[in-house]
């Protein structure tokens, strides 16, 4: 029983990372109709910078914020390259994001090398209902929960958030009322970058980061996002948490080697079911 509670809580912690990456994908896709395959790279960049900043003696909190800020900046840069030119089709932009992801590998290896990096987070062991697990997992959950509440507030209660939702809802009407959909797209990329960066800085103390860690993150984040047809952030959150828990349970009771396969099978199943129900393309860009 205490094993189960431990797996659930650590699974939620891991899943929070997937949920953050997934909701970043959703934030970008809703506004721009672009699937951003550079999303996992934001997490890696942010984690790498945080490890350097901590190494340089900066306190916790400041270093992590620096990492998240780099994630947002990287998001903005990917956005400028991917959608900056008016009339770029979402398909073309998708390929551009793939290219930017590979470019990020080169930059990361040049600056930080190809060895895994990590840094200490919250040290010590937490005990909940007899289950013992690294206390850092609780920090991941304690940060992720308010971030999602803040996002919900931003997208539904502020005019800027409503304008982003308006771009997602009807791009033509957004233009008619004078919303600059390209600038909104860039803002969405920056938000996606920050969310990806946050996933990276939060999970690195419990999972080392290497330049190619983005593959695990993007596969799981995409699986979480695709559950909600890439447009529903709440479903992406639930999907991410579900994936994290499923994988931890699979690793705990089965074998650790099958973690990514769990995400892939789930994603494929969801995509096949959705395709059978609604047709292969969920929503065509106007």
């Amino acid at each position, binding site marked *: 029983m205490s094993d189960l509670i431990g797996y659930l809580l650590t699974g939620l912690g891991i899943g929070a990372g997937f949920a953050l990456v997934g909701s970043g994908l959703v934030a970008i896709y809703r506004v721009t109709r672009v699937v951003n395959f550079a999303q996992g790279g934001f997490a890696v960049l942010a984690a790498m910078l945080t490890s350097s900043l901590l190494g340089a003696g900066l306190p916790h909190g400041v270093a992590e914020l620096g990492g998240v800020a780099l994630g947002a900046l990287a998001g903005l840069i990917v956005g400028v390259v991917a959608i900056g030119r008016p009339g770029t089709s979402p398909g073309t932009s998708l390929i551009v994001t793939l290219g930017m992801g590979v470019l990020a590998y080169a930059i990361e290896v040049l600056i930080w090398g190809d060895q895994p990096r990590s840094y200490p987070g919250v040290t010590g062991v937490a005990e909940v209902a007899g289950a013992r697990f690294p206390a850092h997992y609780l920090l991941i959950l304690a940060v992720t929960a308010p971030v999602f509440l803040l996002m919900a507030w931003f997208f539904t209660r502020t005019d800027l958030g409503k*304008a982003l939702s*308006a771009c997602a809802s009807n791009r*033509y*009407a957004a233009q*008619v*009322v*004078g919303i600059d959909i390209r600038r909104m797209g860039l803002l969405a990329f920056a938000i996606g970058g920050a969310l990806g960066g946050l996933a990276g800085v939060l999970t690195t103390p419990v999972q080392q980061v290497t330049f190619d860690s983005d593959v695990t993150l993007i596969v799981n984040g995409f699986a979480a996002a695709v559950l909600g047809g890439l447009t529903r952030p709440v479903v992406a959150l639930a999907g991410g948490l579900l994936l994290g828990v499923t994988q931890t349970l699979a690793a705990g009771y089965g074998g650790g080697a099958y973690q990514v396969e769990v995400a892939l099978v789930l994603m494929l199943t969801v995509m096949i079911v959705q395709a059978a129900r609604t047709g292969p393309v969920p929503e065509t860009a106007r």
Partner: protein
Amino acid sequence: MTAVVETHDLTVRYSGATALDGVDLTVHDHEMVALIGANGAGKSTLVKALSGLIRPASGTITVNGRLAQVPEGREMFGDLTVDDNLRLGGWRNGRHGRDTTAIYDLLPELTTVRHRKAGALSGGQQQMVAIGRALMARPDILVIDELSLGLAPLIVTTLVDHLRTLNTDRGLAVLLIEQNARLALDLCDRAYVLEAGRIALQGPAATLADDPRVAAAYLGGHVAVTP
């Protein structure tokens, strides 16, 4: 009378094909002007050019004041509430220009549905939201692309009444693009007839309504009987 909108020799091309060819069109302040024409005559292209959504190949567009558009097909933000739809209509005004209270005074029918999703409304209600959203921009001229399309006659009457009130009480100029030529010529002071991207006819609406060419092409072949 000063011109709120004036185009001079306006030409728009889509990848080589000419959609508008040397259009001269003027709407003065306090004026209601109709633009009628068949499908593909270039009406929607003119709307988009006036709103700055497409760039003309040549010619000039002068807008003195603010122009707001009621787009064809109503184009709701379907999963946002009516109130949010209206609020975003004031996007260009900045934060303090986004208070929606005045719109509910102008269009009281919207009060009861203000918290509903715009996508769940009837066509007539959506058209009213589209007009309210355009009014949020505090326009000097409203460009309406198809007011009556797909709406029940009773609803169209309500919308027309609102437009008349806005025009007489607030001096709002209106450029009405309309399939229903009879409705447009009844409502408006002047009219233009667009054919294959060119202005074929223009003049006072009453004169055009009696013109046999207009009657044959746009009024079902009958000249309106005027006592």
